[in-house]
């Protein structure tokens, strides 16, 4: 996205007005908003158009903003990360795939979508290129979802 910000900023800003959900990484969010704090950056970017915003923070997970609410999805700490290429795209694929499957765009379901995005990104980085995703099974996806639930659930 840096490419579009650097090369056709006006058209890019125009396009943003029509966006419902934008997924970008922390660096892009800071460049776009000219604000270092991601919470402040999110507010600024939402004023540009997107109703919901996902800020991906690589190995540190992702933040979802919208409806004056905020949600954090962790990334699964992995023993071996071979190649981060495509992780953000895999995140977007899992995210939008879950929304299409469920047909539900409530904030609660967007939270689940962010987790499914993180699940797909966690597989992507385990091998070079598309190898891991192309051989992946539904069973592995559901097992990893359980790992995500265990990773971040606790009682008070």
């Amino acid at each position, binding site marked *: 996205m840096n490419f579009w910000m650097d090369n056709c900023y006006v058209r890019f800003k125009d396009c943003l007005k029509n966006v419902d959900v934008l997924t970008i990484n922390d660096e892009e969010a800071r460049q776009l908003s000219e604000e270092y704090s991601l919470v402040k950056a999110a507010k600024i970017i939402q004023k540009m158009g997107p109703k919901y915003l996902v800020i991906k923070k*690589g*190995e540190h997970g992702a933040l979802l903003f919208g409806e004056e609410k905020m949600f954090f999805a962790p990334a699964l700490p992995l023993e*071996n*990360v*071979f*190649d*981060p*290429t*495509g992780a953000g*795209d*895999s*995140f*977007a*694929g*899992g995210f*939008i*795939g*879950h929304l*299409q*499957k469920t*047909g539900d765009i409530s904030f609660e379901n967007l939270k689940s979508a962010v987790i*499914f*995005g993180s699940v*797909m*990104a966690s597989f*992507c980085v385990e091998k*070079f*290129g*598309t190898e891991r*995703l*192309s051989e*992946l099974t*539904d069973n592995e*996806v559901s097992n990893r979802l359980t790992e995500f639930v265990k990773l971040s659930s606790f009682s008070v």
Partner: protein
Amino acid sequence: MSILIVGTVAFDAIETPFGKTDKIVGGAATYISLAASFFSNKLRLVSVVGDDFPKESIQMLKDHKVDTEGLQIKEGEKTFFWSGKYHNDMNSRDTVDTQLNVLETFDPILPESFTR
């Protein structure tokens, strides 16, 4: 409702602290399609490749229930190529080479079947 994916289908050459690849299949639209295919069987892809792009990789997308009718294959032209090197923390990377090739003149066209 279906998911329309417009983006790059590409060749990447990648170097990370764990190894190095020659040209392998990549591109944002490829990753998005594959990841989304675990949830949705209504995926429609609009992109462009050259005739150097492996038929098996297009078949791999089809096997994942991706409708590739919107994937243009340009005879005598080369697929978009990106090469990058990751730093030790894997969070940042340098672009080594970008060859736009077919992307330079790409005109995304929605096939008639995608409008239904």
